[in-house]
């Protein structure tokens, strides 16, 4: 228990300092700091709706963070979660619309799976470029993000377009593709179960299996891992494809659970937040869901804060970035 306390302490200090720093800024701009803090931290817990909103954000955030931390374990940086999520959503919507008459027992798994496979494919491309040509994955994953923006625009303004909507959006997917609701009001879909299961599975994989060990060894020293029999190239590819699948899953969950259609911009800022979560959690897959929940709380609070107090949401983003920076610094302090 004491060891747990000692690990959490630097995080708490980092959070406190980050809040304090931004708080000074907020006060200097003439806003009510106390109310700002309250709104940011407590909105998730004040109403059932607030809490559900937090859980709904928690799902894509966790999956995006894992999509970053899994390749990170192998030493690779996947910045393409955005594109992988988008194509995942596209595939999910495509299947959901094309086969909209199928019953749930068929359509729902198809929709979810389509998203996972599409995301995995979008991760396979940079993985293959890395494997075959040694191309830096930071660049290739990012470039594919931009490509995916064009693709989703194509799809959302194409034959499936919902002409009544003001913003590029498709017609809804068939009802069979909707994720069943756990609670109806406020709306909580069963994607949360999926997310928790997947997160646990990833954790067990990396910490208990030989495959997970090989991933860790690859990230710790790819050359040494190779010398001692681990197929490092395959590890890189596998980690990126798995990551793509995770982000793609996030995409299909958003389509099947939240929007029930494809909306341009559905990827929101989940990627950047996912990266921040992954880095704050220091790549530890067990810590990711907890950090993700915390960030979800902050994000829900941020939009409430902008609505009610007119303080821009970016303030909270700065808080999150500062928390990351201070967590990283605490590492340095601990080393001395």
């Amino acid at each position, binding site marked *: 228990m004491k060891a747990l306390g000692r690990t959490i302490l630097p995080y708490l200090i980092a959070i406190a300092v980050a809040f304090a720093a931004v708080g000074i800024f907020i006060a200097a701009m003439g806003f009510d700091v106390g109310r700002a803090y309250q709104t940011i931290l407590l909105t998730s817990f004040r109403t059932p709706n607030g809490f559900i909103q937090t859980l709904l954000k928690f799902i894509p955030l966790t999956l995006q963070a894992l999509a970053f931390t899994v390749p990170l374990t192998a030493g690779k940086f996947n910045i393409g979660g955005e594109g992988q999520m988008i194509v995942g959503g596209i595939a999910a919507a495509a299947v959901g619309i094309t086969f909209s008459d199928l019953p749930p027992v068929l359509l729902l798994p198809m929709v979810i799976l389509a998203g996972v496979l599409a995301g995995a494919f979008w991760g396979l491309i940079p993985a293959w470029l890395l494997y075959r040509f040694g191309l830096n994955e930071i660049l290739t994953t990012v470039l594919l993000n931009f490509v995916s923006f064009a693709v989703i625009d194509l799809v959302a303004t194409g034959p499936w377009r919902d002409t009544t909507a003001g913003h590029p959006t498709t017609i809804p997917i068939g009802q069979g593709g909707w994720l069943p609701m756990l609670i109806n009001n406020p709306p909580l879909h069963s994607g949360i179960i999926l997310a928790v299961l997947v997160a646990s599975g990833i954790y067990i994989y990396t910490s*208990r299996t030989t495959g997970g060990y090989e991933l860790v060894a690859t990230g710790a*020293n790819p*050359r*040494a891992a190779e*010398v001692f*029999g681990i197929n490092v190239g395959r590890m890189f590819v596998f980690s990126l494809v798995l990551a793509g699948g995770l982000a793609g899953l996030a995409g299909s969950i958003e389509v099947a659970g939240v929007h029930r259609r494809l909306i341009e911009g559905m990827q929101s800022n989940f990627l950047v937040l996912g990266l921040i979560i992954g880095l704050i959690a220091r790549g530890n897959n067990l810590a990711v869901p907890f950090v993700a929940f915390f960030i979800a709380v902050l994000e829900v609070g941020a939009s409430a804060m902008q609505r009610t107090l007119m303080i821009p949401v970016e303030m909270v983003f700065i808080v999150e970035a500062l928390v990351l920076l201070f967590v990283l610094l605490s590492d340095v302090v601990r080393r001395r």
Partner: protein
Amino acid sequence: MEKQPILELKNIRKTFDKLVALDDVSFSLLPGEIHGLLGGNGAGKTTLMNILYGLYRKDQGEIYLNGEKIEIHGPRDALNRGIGMVHQHFLQISNYTVLENIVLGSGITHRYTMKLEPEARKVEELCQRFGLPVDLDAVISTLPIGTRQKVEILKALYRGVKILILDEPTTNLTPQEVDALFESLRVMVNDGLSIVFITHKLREVLSVCDRITVLREGRNITTLDRKDASEDVFVRAMVGEQMNIEKSVYFARDTKTFGEVDTTAVPILRLNQVNLLSKEGVPRLKDVSFDIFPGEIFGIAGVAGNGQRELAEVAAGIVPPTSGKIEQNGKDVTGLPVAERLRRGLSYIPEDRLHDGFLPKASVAQNLILGVHRQPPYSDGRFINWKTVYQKTREQISEYNIKTGGPEEPGGNLSGGNIQRVMIARAFSMNADLLVAHNPTRGLDIPSMDFVYQKILQRKAQKQATLLISEDLDELMLLSDRIAVIYRGEILGILPREAFDKYAIGRLMSGIRSTEPATP
């Protein structure tokens, strides 16, 4: 007639985190002498000189140059004061030329056009004077190690140093080149330089040094004139009381034999006409053939960079040969992936332990199972049994004397010598039929080296085979049943133990083929 010391280091203390590297060490250098700094790995010799050269900061102590107290804040200071250092691992820019490397960092006449004629002339004059001929326009990466060392020395001479420190300069030289180096040192001393010669090899200091200081575990044990003390005095000073010198392997007289080898049995390892071409098509191994029998220690001698690494990696299955066959215990294993070779009874100690064998960001336990993590008892193939892993790790920490906080300690915290012990523990713990060991005792102090030698000899008794690739000729001659000499990827000769002769091996190491046919 007492000469005043040109250099004095007094009461130097240096710690790295919690490790005390130097504890109240004093050292003095007389003008015009070659002073040997002797001790095993980890004794503190390089640390002391790095402090003098400004690469490390001392915690306590004073430095006096010509009687005047000075402070050295960095290599620039040291060089300005006439102190130069030739490091064990050359500090050269591989894709610059020899001339560029020599003049880098010093004032250049034509700073804005980079015409280097005046500098080139100065360097050529030095080459003549000190007998160190080099081609100034050659690119460093194309040069052999002996030549690169000359470049290192010229770097210091070019800056007009009065004190030259050489850190283990003979590691990569043939016996003949060692003699030539000692000649050059004499020329330098006659020209007015004073030299500090760092080494762990007793025989060398006895042949070239005027005075010898012995360091052990960060302390100055003794300083003696060469002619005032016998070899035994120095040996005892180097290892202290903890080692039983009589029973040790390290100090055994090299006429001792450790056991016969049965050459009629099926060889544990057979290489047949193995060739290896690099990615660019350059031949790295040429028609290499030899057998290693059960209970045999097969040594590979050679100057570093003549194909040893390639040989180690081909023998261990890390790199498949371009042509030729490899058999283990009579079965063809050519081209099998490393994981499979490991499973069939192979252990490997890579030369570059940090890059090729160690996971600094992983824990000690995770390091110890690298390569064998799919095998029992650590795993059933799918899941890892961490309880067993930790238990075995604790056993190995104790048996191999690995200084660490525990199985979960991050590997990056370990010192160089302890990392090597992890490599060794890993290699010996699986009791494999074949051990490929490349410079296994690098970085170890003398008692640890002795421990490794005992372990290797144990393998003899257990009828296991060891391919021992080493740049330490003394080590090879001490342990091997046969020694093969590798030169530019070719095995130029294989000598049986009865025929071991330092200079004969040295000739082969330099590429001078023997007129007699190679004895198998």
